[in-house]
């Protein structure tokens, strides 16, 4: 009797598992979560604080892995994402699914056991929101995908605050609203200069579906409530002048860049410099706002 010998599958490298967690995105998530934790009006044991931030990072990694598991076909069609472990064929889909589910479950259980149930519940909700609501349900169906999906990225400061205080109050809700309303101008600025990539992949991003002009107008319009959410904590007495002054100045600059993008008309060979500038500054903007929030808590 003869037996067929099948080649053994090559296991994925550990670096590919790391890449699956989207470390670049995780940086901002960890930072805003840490700021939520530090801005809370109580002090948390440093070990427990570290554990809470670790859980937020692991949950973000799990959500990123499950997003890549579900979207591997889509990632293969986009220049920006085609070298990720799944579309590049360096990992099989089942390994990515097991890794994502395992990592997410571990993060939520650890948060529940070591910190508190409220932060664990919000953490679980944030993973489910990103994977089920954004990735599976909205992303391929509606140009409003990132508007509603933006809530997924807005959870970390809320989780950080809940980890420290075991409750949620007005200030972290404003931080949630700020990130939620910041997401559309941030993503649409990116979508304007990688429009063809999204169109090729069949993702109904706003510039692909409604056109460039509508997207520009929406960037301008969303900047208004975003600015209100960023500045409001100061006049409402939730923060002091340090946050108020920094937030007002940083938001004014954001609004200026957004206005520039909103009122532009572009030709065929446009290099999209203002859009790239707005996208780059929008990331720095969140770092500035959240750093100011923590500085305000400790210096005022």
């Amino acid at each position, binding site marked *: 009797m003869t037996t067929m010998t099948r080649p*053994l599958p090559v296991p994925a490298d*550990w670096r590919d598992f790391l890449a699956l967690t989207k470390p670049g995105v995780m940086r901002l998530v960890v930072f805003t979560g840490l700021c939520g934790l530090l801005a809370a009006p109580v002090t948390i044991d440093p070990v*427990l604080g570290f554990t809470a931030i670790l859980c937020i990072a692991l949950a973000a990694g799990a959500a990123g892995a499950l997003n890549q598991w579900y979207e591997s076909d889509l990632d293969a069609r986009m220049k920006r994402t085609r070298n990720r472990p799944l579309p590049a064929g360096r990992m099989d889909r089942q390994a990515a699914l097991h890794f994502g589910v395992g990592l997410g479950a571990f993060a939520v259980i650890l948060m529940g056991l*070591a910190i508190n149930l409220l932060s664990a519940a919000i953490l679980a909700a944030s993973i489910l929101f990103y994977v089920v609501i954004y990735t599976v349900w909205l992303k391929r169906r509606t140009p409003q995908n990132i508007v509603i999906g933006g809530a997924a990225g807005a959870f970390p400061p809320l989780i950080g605050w809940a980890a420290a205080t075991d409750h949620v109050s007005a200030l972290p809700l404003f931080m949630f609203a700020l990130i939620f309303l910041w997401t559309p101008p941030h993503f649409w600025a990116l979508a304007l200069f990688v429009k063809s990539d999204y169109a090729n992949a069949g993702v109904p991003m706003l510039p692909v579906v409604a056109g460039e002009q509508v997207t520009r107008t929406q960037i301008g319009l969303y900047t208004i409530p975003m600015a209100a959410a960023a500045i409001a904590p100061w006049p409402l007495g939730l923060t002091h002048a340090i946050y108020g002054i920094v937030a007002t100045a940083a938001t004014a600059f954001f609004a200026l860049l957004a206005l520039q993008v909103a009122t532009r008309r572009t030709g065929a060979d446009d290099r999209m410099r203002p859009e790239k500038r707005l996208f780059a500054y929008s990331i720095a903007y969140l770092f500035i706002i959240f750093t100011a929030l923590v500085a305000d808590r400790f210096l005022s």
Partner: protein
Amino acid sequence: MTDPQDDEDLIRRRQRSRARVTALLLAALVILFFFISIAKIRSGTP
């Protein structure tokens, strides 16, 4: 076509490096859980 011996070597290398990373992560978790327990005992929370 790739040499089966090369594939075998690559698989072994990958398995070794993954085992090493897993061992490091488990060791880090043991240390973390120890310090979490100490923090919980000190603060008197369950």
